[in-house]
């Protein structure tokens, strides 16, 4: 059984490397005069991926190899798109990937051995609040939201690590399967969501809030609290529409982007044009016009990908993301302690909701909120934190497996 699975994993890994070589060869052929440079990219990526795979298999016994393979596959697709749009961004991103792989291994190991240590949930809450307060105090504004911190040449988004600490806080708080003081819990969640709202990071606020509702539901099975929580979210959304101009703009751009194409509707309309151009089969790598889409390396990378890889490519990518969510849920189900199960569920929920939010946003299924597409979007904090999230899932799985072996 194990051997058979290993063979499947190896095949998947080889297929990923092969796809990379084909794509980067195409990009080489497209540059005129012919340049082998993109191929170096493929070689570098494959080297990092294979090394990472062997290292994880060697160091992390009882891990879930699918997590690493699937995330590397998505990262590679992102890298292909980045190279095609902007080779400079590609070189930076491949460094982030390498660092991401290391943090993946590191976080897996740390979580495996430290998950048993009981840390007061309020420690995690304090860290979350601190992280989220940071950009409000000394942050810089980027793309309309004040959620970035500038450190020397690097800027990073503290809300990314806050996702993890927030989930750990909730898991710790809810592990006994009941809410001891509903008022207090709600107030704590509201402080966190409020900080995000103050930073005008509405997508983030929604993610944090819905993840909290999901965890409360899973831990307590209380339909009443869950329903009240969702109703409160609905009321907040409606009043946000009436009281905040930027919420209204987003919603109107979603309902009818054609009213003001050069202005409010510009981003979403350009995204839709790109996806429409792709059709079922896509224009083919290098044949589309991702440069027409604003923020195509970050929020809108899915639109650029859809244009060149078509509906089939985009649907396949969505399925791969879904597989990651599926593995996360499986790990959560396999956990024997409620803290581990809740932590795994929380991280998976954050991750899955984020993917749904951004893909749904760029295809105009739901209003657009500026969140990144994990592993694909250009940017270090997103890449590293996505790998850390997977690392935590991996560590939880390892600790469960370890126990099995012991027992």
């Amino acid at each position, binding site marked *: 059984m194990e051997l058979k699975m290993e063979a499947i994993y190896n095949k998947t890994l080889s297929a990923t490397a092969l796809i990379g070589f084909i794509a980067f060869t195409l990009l080489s052929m497209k540059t005129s005069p012919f340049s082998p440079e993109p191929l170096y990219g493929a070689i570098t990526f494959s080297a990092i991926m294979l090394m990472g795979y062997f290292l994880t298999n060697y160091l992390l016994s009882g891990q879930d190899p699918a997590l690493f393979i699937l995330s590397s596959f998505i990262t590679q697709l992102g890298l292909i798109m980045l190279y095609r749009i902007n080779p400079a961004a590609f070189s930076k991103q491949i460094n982030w990937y390498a660092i991401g792989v290391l943090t993946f291994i590191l976080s897996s190991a740390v979580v495996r051995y430290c998950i048993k240590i009981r840390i007061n949930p309020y420690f995690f809450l304090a860290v979350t609040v601190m992280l989220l307060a940071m950009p409000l105090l000394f942050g810089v504004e980027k793309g309309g939201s004040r959620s970035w911190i500038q450190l020397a040449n690097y800027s990073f988004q503290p809300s990314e690590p806050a996702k993890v600490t927030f989930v750990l806080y909730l898991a710790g708080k809810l592990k006994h399967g009941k809410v001891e003081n509903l008022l207090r819990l709600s107030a704590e969640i509201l402080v966190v969501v409020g900080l995000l709202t103050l930073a005008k990071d509405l997508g983030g606020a929604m993610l944090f809030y819905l993840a909290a509702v999901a965890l409360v539901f899973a831990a307590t099975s209380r339909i009443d609290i869950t329903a009240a929580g969702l109703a409160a979210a609905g009321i907040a959304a409606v009043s946000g529409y009436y009281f905040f101009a930027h919420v209204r703009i987003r919603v109107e751009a979603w309902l009818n982007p054609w009213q003001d194409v050069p202005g409010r509707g510009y981003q979403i309309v350009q995204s839709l044009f790109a996806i429409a151009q792709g059709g079922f089969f896509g224009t083919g790598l290098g044949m589309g016009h991702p440069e027409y889409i604003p923020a195509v390396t970050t929020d809108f990378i899915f639109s650029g990908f859809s244009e060149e890889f078509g509906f089939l490519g985009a649907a396949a990518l969505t399925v791969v*993301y879904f597989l990651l*969510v599926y593995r996360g849920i499986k790990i959560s189900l396999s956990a024997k302690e409620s803290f581990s*199960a809740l932590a795994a*569920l929380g991280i998976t929920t954050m991750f899955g909701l984020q993917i749904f939010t951004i893909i749904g946003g760029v295809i105009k299924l739901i209003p657009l909120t500026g969140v990144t597409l994990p592993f694909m979007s250009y940017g270090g904090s997103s890449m590293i934190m996505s790998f850390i999230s997977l690392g935590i899932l991996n560590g939880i799985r390892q600790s469960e497996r370890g126990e099995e072996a012991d027992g």
Partner: protein
Amino acid sequence: MDKLRKNIKIIFVIFCGLFISLIVYMSYFTAYERDRLIQSSYNRRLWEQEDKVLRGTIYDAKGRPLADTVVEGNIKKRVYPGGEAFGPLIGYSDRRFGRAGLEDALNSELLGVAEKDPMVLLRQKILGVSDRGSGVYLTIDSQLQGTAYRLFRGRRGALVAMDPSTGALLAVVSSPGYDAENLSNKWEGLLDNPDKPLINRATQGLYPPGSAFKIITLAAALTSHPEIEKKTYYTPGYVKINGRIIRDYEHLRPGDYDLRAAFRYSCNTVFIQIGQEVGPDNLFSMAEAFGFNAKLDTDIPIATSTMPKPPALGGEVELAEDSIGQGKILATPLQMARVASVIASGGKLATPYIVQKVVSPLGFEKSYNVQMPREVLDKTVADKVKALMVDVVKNGTGRPAGINGITVAGKTGSAENPHGKTHAWFVGFAPAENPKIAVAAVVENAGSGGANAGPIVKQVILQYITGLKK
């Protein structure tokens, strides 16, 4: 723990739903929304395509080019050999000014992006013709169009000529027109011109039809109250309804009129009495049968001609005004040509069309779906109306449209409007025995219909029928 596991599974099911909805929406988008987006004029990719592609030619019914792309060195230039007479109909395609007219409506054919069959696209690529758009052949007779345009002598107005049995448009004239070549030199002038040459009056202009609408009142009367044919009505020269006075035309003598005479001399007061007998609902449903209030699904955009639904109570004044085509009724010249066609074809309403066929670079011909005319009026009623229309041209207000040797049937209209003198209408067809052409013409603020619009229609009919005989 078991409860927790169950809840985790519930959350997983929700995730399944979310991800499935993503893929379902993407499939829906690709299958249904895609075409509209690709052809949106906001889409920069379309202009990109435009640079790569040799835009197709628009031809008239006899294969004469009306819009063509010539290549001078490396520069592609769109030329419009038809000149001013075709400006509002053909429109323009320009990176700076966007697109209008048929250049806009037929854009995807002209660029060759309407072709969706991947095998055809592949074959075009192999044969090296993928950089060419399709040619579009119209049903328009460009000589007829040119003649009609000149007859307006720069006056504001419009004319539509169509084949009454099929709905094929033979001429769609809007005056004043413009020459779409070298648009950048004259754009400001065209925009500022108070006569608004950029608008296609024939398909977008909404006018009160005036007495030309009496064709519909007459058809409604003969359908619902056939005995009206034998009655006579008295007119003192005006009628007073709820305090509003509606007069007959100046030179109409007061006295007794039967239906034939009232139609011949376009007697308002008699038709108001007839309208009262017919009733608002019959009149309204007859107008809808003739194509009012229905959005036309055709290859060119056409404004919808409207008649408001009669109010449940009161509405005496409205009914009186509606019976003589005043009040709130609005019709495009194209709609009035359809009205004439219904009578000409013995009661069948044709859907107008302008594209005869599209020829792809590989030589494949694609015909557009022509909707079959459908019967909306009893043939005996249509024939009675036809006889009365022949009488109008022979002995009545329509005499200026009479032609020796060809029986012309018609109806004049002098529509009152808030902008000065009456709009002159003439709506007719010929030859009455076997109609080949139906025409509607309007000259804005020109005065009486017979004297001003009649001669234009006469010349158009004459040229078309003699052309057929050759």
